[in-house]
Structures are given as C-alpha cells and as structure tokens.
C-alpha cells in the first residue's frame, strides 16, 4: 500500500490524539549513554510503577533516543521541554521513580533530580534554560529525545516523511540545485559540497547507481552518528529516498559498524516499518520510483569509514582503500556510480527540502551552512552530544555549553576532527567553528569529535595516543601509512620516555610530510596531524621532554616524579588516604613525604590536594 500525504496527516492526527489523552508524557532517554547509566531499569521500574499506582491513563512513558546530556544520564524529560530530570535512578531507582510520579500526582517538582551546573547553586527546571541546551540549534537532532525511534507513527506525527512528496514534485535537477545552493557540505569530515557530489553521481554514466550512508563512525570519543542512528533512524532513510530519487538510484546501503548493535537494531526496525508503509520498495509513495535500503554491518575497522575502503567492505572484500583518481561517483561500489554521504548529511536533507533554501542558508557562515553535531568530551563539565550552528566559537562550545573546564584546572587544548585532526590551543578559541577555519589552523572539522584537554593532559602523550590508534587501524596496504605511522609512534614513544633527541622533531616533520604526500587514503594522509599540530602549538612541551627530560603535565610516567612542597602542605592527609600504593608518609597536621620507591606516579595526590602542595618534577 502506498501512503498519500492525506494518509500521513491521518496518522498524525490519530497519533496526536492518542498522546493528548495523557496528562503527562515521560520520555526516558534510552540512548547507549543513558542505558549504560541504567536507563532501561528506570524505564521498566517507571512502567510498572505507573501501572501499580493506577496511573496508566494519566501518564505515558516513552523510550527515546539520546538527549545529549550524557554526563548526567539517565535523563527523563517531562512534557515537551517542561522538566528535565537528570541522574535518575543513579542512587535509588525506586525512590527516584516515586519522585517522578509525585511530580504528576502532587504537582511537585523533584528538586533532587534537577540539573545544577558544576560549582553553582542555581537549579534549572526546563532544559531550555540550561546553557548546555540554550546555546544549541537542534535541527537534525530536533526529534532525538522526543520521539520513540522504534515507532514510525511518532516520526510521521512530528512531520516526518513529508519531504519526499515535495521532492517528487521537483525534477532531479531542481533537487540537486537546492542542495547545492543550500550549501550543505559533507558531515563526515571532508566538507565536500553535497549537491556537487549528487550532480556528478547523477550525471555519471552507468547503471545501476548506488547510494550509501556512512555510519561507520570510529573515532575515539565520538558518538554523533551512533546517537543519530539510534535516536532518529527514519531521518536518514527519508534523506536517502530523496537522494536516490535525485541521483537516479534504486538501491541504498547503510554501513553501520557492528559495535553499534542498538543502531543496527533500530535502523533495521525503521527500514521494516518504512517498507510496510510503502515508503521503501516498489513504487515509493505511489510515485513510480522504486527504492530500497539495506543495512551492511561493518567489522569495526576505522579505515572502513573511508569511502573506497567502505565500498570494498560492502563488496565483501577486505577493507582496503584505493586511489581515487577515478572518483567513486563514477566508479564506486562494484565499479558503478556511487554516492556516499555521512548519515548526518542524509538527515539534513529532509529539512532543506521541507523548510526551503532561505531558511537553511540563514543558518551558519558564508562557506559552511547549517548546523553540526559534535560529541563534546574530555575535561569539560557537561560532556555530551550537541548540535550547534556553524560559526559558533570554540570558546562558546567549551565554556558555555560545556560549562567550562572541570575542577580548578586551566584549558589547554581542544582536539577536533578525530584521531587525525589537530589540537587547537587557547589562542584560537575565538575562531568560528566551520570547515575552512578549522583547516586553516592545522586541524579539521572531521566528523565531529571534540575532546577538551586541560593542563593535566600532556600534548606529547596525546599525540602518541592517537598515533598508536592510527598505527593499529592502518589497513597496511600502502608502505607510507603501514610502516610510517608505526615508526612515528616509536619516535613519539621514545620522546615520552625521555629518550628523545632534538633531531626527532625534524624527523617527525619529514616523515609527516612524506605520509601526507604519499599515502593512499585520508587515514594515512592525515595521520601525522596530531603530531604536526602539537609540534606547531606545543613545541615547548616537546622540548621539555627532550631537553629537560621532564613532562610538565606529569603524565609521562618514566620522566615524572611528584614531591610535596613542605611550606604548602598542611598535613590534611587527603593524599595519603587516596594514594593507591601507600607511598605517602607523615604525621597528621605535619608536611607529608612521598616515598619515591613506592610511588607509581599516577598523579592522584596531585589531583586531590586542596592546597596545591604537590609538585610535578
């Protein structure tokens, strides 16, 4: 059965009527982050409590996708942005569930579950007031945390699946023209103009044509794509229907890594539901256009996020990239014209079609339109998933949305662009976040990972960490990447252990250049970025390791010692209580001493001392 626009409206009214019958809707975030904090338990307890208390006709409990504030999960939202409860059930599930019910039955807002910024007294009731949400512009994520991702009617009731109707009234050229003029750029990191790619794929000779959605997100600390696939899978499918129609493709694949089981499950369910409504398959929405989507589960190799390696993987071969002298839009999957976009790019498409060009181009900067989803992690107070307009500054993201640096420490750097991105220092914090600005300072937008670091992060160690990741994730096809990354890692490791030589810096830069010029794919070409950008901005830290044989951040164990400054130590014994090795000795209220023989230089004493009496030496 093919659904018409009227059908969609009927579904919408029926769905809304059903929800309106309830006095209150409670949305329990069931994204992977909240689930690991116990959201499923909260959901089940809440359901049975509602039933037990005879409130089933008054309260509707819903499962939703990621709400973003993962740091404070499990999140439960009451009404539409009315009350945000955080850390629900972290201490006592039954008690917190009771508080949730009382909010409805007694009209009492549960103070204990409200959001409070770190180090501040003020509490927030509505999420709209919380700086973390206030600074966001949620377009792609607008339905994340609102709809039940496993229910297609919910998506339809929130305006879903209307864009294809509009698109089918346009010609293929018109749609591509819109996407081009809208200035949508690839959200997977490349930042290539989506419309131009669609145009090339559409103009390419050969059939069949394929379209692919890249959901292989593999950067450490990134979960934008996962949250989108888990929280709003239909948006990706809707975007792909429009793309398929515009490009002239009847088959789409969504490539998801198998480490994302919830994303795979929710996408599979979404595809099934879309098929049953005639939105996928033969004669989509009665338009005469045939289009279907299948999921391809990847084995979790980071390199398979690279377009040609991804296609190789879908073909059943090992995930090795190839040189793209002939573009994949001409010869991609099975050597046929193939258009690959990131899942976030696909999810942008329905919004552009529905809301028009003027609306879309009004958001963002001149060269980078729209919004971008970031996973904000590291040493900020509010870690989580954010969607912000392009052009927002890094400072706003870190200090307003992110609530600043944890504890008393100072900001040192922010790493953007995933493992092969770069580390950006304080001096560039007022730089607008867009594709070109980030590239100009030696980093990149990447797919949206953002790792904030403070003075307790050693930049040499950070570069070593990413290089180790890339060495292990290199597919090993080309010599520069396979052998070069591991040799770079060896040099970095040597420097971290205090055995570096000053010539190593030039050697690293030389090897880095050879990789940038010589490697086959983006992984190898950008692998030197963490090293090159940290050498560029944090040379002093490298020199401290190499020349002075010390790690200023107190991270590199081999060249770090901790000692207690007698004049500052009050003998509060906080450090000796926390020291896992019992290496801190001394009498109460008298200066303590660290026994170097027992000390494993973990730095816990340094982190817990309230009087800054521990010195890194």
């Amino acid at each position, binding site marked *: 059965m093919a659904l018409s626009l009227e059908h969609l409206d009927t579904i919408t009214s029926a769905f809304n009527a059903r929800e309106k019958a309830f006095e209150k809707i409670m949305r329990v975030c069931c994204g992977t982050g909240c689930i690991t904090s116990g959201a499923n338990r909260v959901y089940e307890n809440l359901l049975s409590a509602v039933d037990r208390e005879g409130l089933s006709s008054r309260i509707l409990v819903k499962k939703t996708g990621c709400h973003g504030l993962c740091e404070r999960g499990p999140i439960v939202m009451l009404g539409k942005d009315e009350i945000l409860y955080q850390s629900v059930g972290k201490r006592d599930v039954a008690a917190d569930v009771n508080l949730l019910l009382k909010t409805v039955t007694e009209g009492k807002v549960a103070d204990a579950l409200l959001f409070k910024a770190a180090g501040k007294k003020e509490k927030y009731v509505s999420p709209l007031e919380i700086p973390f949400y206030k600074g966001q512009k949620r377009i792609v994520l607008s339905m994340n945390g609102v709809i039940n991702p496993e229910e297609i009617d919910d998506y339809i009731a929130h305006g879903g699946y209307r864009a294809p109707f509009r698109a089918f009234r346009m010609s293929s050229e018109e749609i591509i023209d819109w996407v081009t003029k809208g200035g949508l750029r690839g959200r997977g990191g490349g930042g290539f103009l989506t419309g131009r790619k669609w145009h090339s794929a559409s103009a390419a000779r050969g059939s069949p044509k394929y379209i692919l959605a890249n959901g292989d997100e593999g950067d450490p600390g990134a979960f934008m794509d996962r949250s989108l696939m888990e929280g709003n899978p239909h948006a990706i499918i809707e975007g792909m229907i429009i793309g398929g129609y515009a490009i002239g493709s009847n088959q789409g694949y969504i490539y998801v890594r198998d480490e994302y089981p919830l994303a795979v499950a929710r996408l599979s369910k979404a595809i099934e539901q879309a098929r049953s409504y005639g939105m996928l398959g033969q004669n989509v929405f009665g338009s005469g256009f045939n289009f279907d989507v299948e999921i391809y589960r990847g084995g979790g190799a980071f390199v398979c996020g690279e377009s040609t390696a991804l296609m190789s993987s879908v073909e059943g071969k090992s995930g090795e990239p190839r*040189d793209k002298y002939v573009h994949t839009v001409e010869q991609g999957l099975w050597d046929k014209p193939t258009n690959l976009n990131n899942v976030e790019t696909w999810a942008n498409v329905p919004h552009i079609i529905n809301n028009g060009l003027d609306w879309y181009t009004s958001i963002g900067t001149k060269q980078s339109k729209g919004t971008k989803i970031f996973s904000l992690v590291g040493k900020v107070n509010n870690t989580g998933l954010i969607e912000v307009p392009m052009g927002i500054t890094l400072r706003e993201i870190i200090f307003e949305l992110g609530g600043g640096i944890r504890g008393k420490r100072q900001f040192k750097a922010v790493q953007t662009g995933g493992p092969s991105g770069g580390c950006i220092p304080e001096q560039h914090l007022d730089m607008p976040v867009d594709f070109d600005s980030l590239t100009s300072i030696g980093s990149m937008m990447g797919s949206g990972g953002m790792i904030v670091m403070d003075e307790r992060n050693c930049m040499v160690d950070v570069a070593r960490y990413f290089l180790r990741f890339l060495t292990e994730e290199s597919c*090993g096809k*080309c*010599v520069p990447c396979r052998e070069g*990354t591991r040799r770079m890692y*060896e040099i970095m490791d040597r420097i971290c252990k205090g055995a570096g030589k000053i010539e190593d810096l030039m050697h690293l830069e030389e090897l880095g250049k050879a990789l940038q010029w010589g*490697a086959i794919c983006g992984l190898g070409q950008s692998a030197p970025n963490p090293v090159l950008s940290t050498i560029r901005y944090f040379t002093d830290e490298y020199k401290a390791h190499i020349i002075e044989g010390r790690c200023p951040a107190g991270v590199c164990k081999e060249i770090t010692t901790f000692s207690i400054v007698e004049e500052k130590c009050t003998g509060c014994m906080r450090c000796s209580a926390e020291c896992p090795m019992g290496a801190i000795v001394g009498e109460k209220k008298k200066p303590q001493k660290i026994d170097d023989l027992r000390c494993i230089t973990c730095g816990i004493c340094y982190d817990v001392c309230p009087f800054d009496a521990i010195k890194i030496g």
Partner: protein
Amino acid sequence: MVQLSINGKKITAEEGEALLKIARREGFVIPTLCYHEQLGSSGRCRLCVVEVHDSGRKRVVASCLYPAKEGIEVFTDSEEVRLVRRTVLELLLARNPSAELIQNLAKQHGVTEVRYTPDQDKGKCILCNLCVRCCKDIVGVSALGMSGKGPMKKVGPPFDEPAETCIGCGACVVICPTGHIVMEEENGVRTVWQKKFELATCPKCKRYHLPLFQLEWISKTRKIPMEELMVCEDCR
C-alpha cells in the same frame, strides 16, 4: 588522444592510460615494486609516485594508476617525489634489512642511513601483493591472501595452514621480487607454504619434474590426459 608533458617533454598519449606506462615508453625511469605488466597496478608500494599539476592543483600520485588527462604536467623527480621515494625505501629497508633488492634500490636513491630499529621478523616480504594477485589472476586458485592489518598484515595461505587449493606450482616463488617465498625439493617432495607435494617421475628420463597434484589439476581443468602430462617438458 591527449597532450601532456613529462618533465617538460610534450607527449601525446591515449586518454586514461597509466602515467607509468607512458613515462617508461618515453624513456623516463620510475622505480616500482608492486607493479607488474601481467598483473597491473595496486598502488601499494608508492615508489612510482610522480608529481602531477592538474588545473592548478598539485598532487603526488601513484603513476601506475593515474590516468593520462589533457594538459597535465608530470614531474618524475620533484622534491616531494624524492621525499616519498626515499621515505618508502628507508621504511622498507628497516622492515626487510636482508632484502638485496631493497638494499640496491635504497642505495640508488641515496638512502644510506636507516634511522629505525630494523625488524627481524618480516623476512624479505614487502607486502607487494604480487604473489596473491598471481595466484588468483594467473594460476587461478587463490591459495594465498593477506591477513591482519596495519603492521601485523602478512601474506600466506588461509589460517597459516597448508592451503587446500595450492597446487604447488611455485608461481608465487617466481614472481616474488625479493625472494621471500621459499620452495624446497628433497627426495621427490616439494615443499612450499608448508604444503608438501609428491613430484611426478618422468617415465622417459626417470627424473622428478612437477608435483603430481599440479598435473592432476591441469589434467582436470584443461582436459589433458594424465599420461601426456607425466612426461616432463624436456622429453615431450
């Protein structure tokens, strides 16, 4: 046909033909390790890189794969090209210190010092993939493949066990550019990739020649009677 230039020399070539072929035909020297005329290109070794200026864009590309286009300027010995080649050779020399081919190439390209600790466990294998492609595309049995990734990548039969499909033909041994693959014959038994093959004895000269298993495979796939194949090439 398209017009392009290599090191300033104007050249006419077929559109889409690989730069390496054109350059070699025109007498320019470009070193390669993973390219083979019969097996084509795979772009692994990055030794054949050249610098290409195309519509104002400068790139360093693998010449074995880059297709000839109208108006491009190619440089086979630019600073960047030399940097990539020298780096590749130094890295390979550290990986395969005993491979004479790499030693010679490195010397030719001025790589005199290796700044890394040489590997002791990789033998002479440079992972050029020629044996894998030969076994698949020419022999047609796909007894070899690559496993692992990154620095752990290696070539061998599936699961490092004697491959069922290996016919013991030794083509991999012949094509290996560094001499990494070892094949031994002793008392009428050939051993390659840990698989043992009984050798056929020629009824005429009574000498051992090819593995029986290989002859049976040829007999089956080419429909040639075994009796004919049992006679060695010298006696046929």
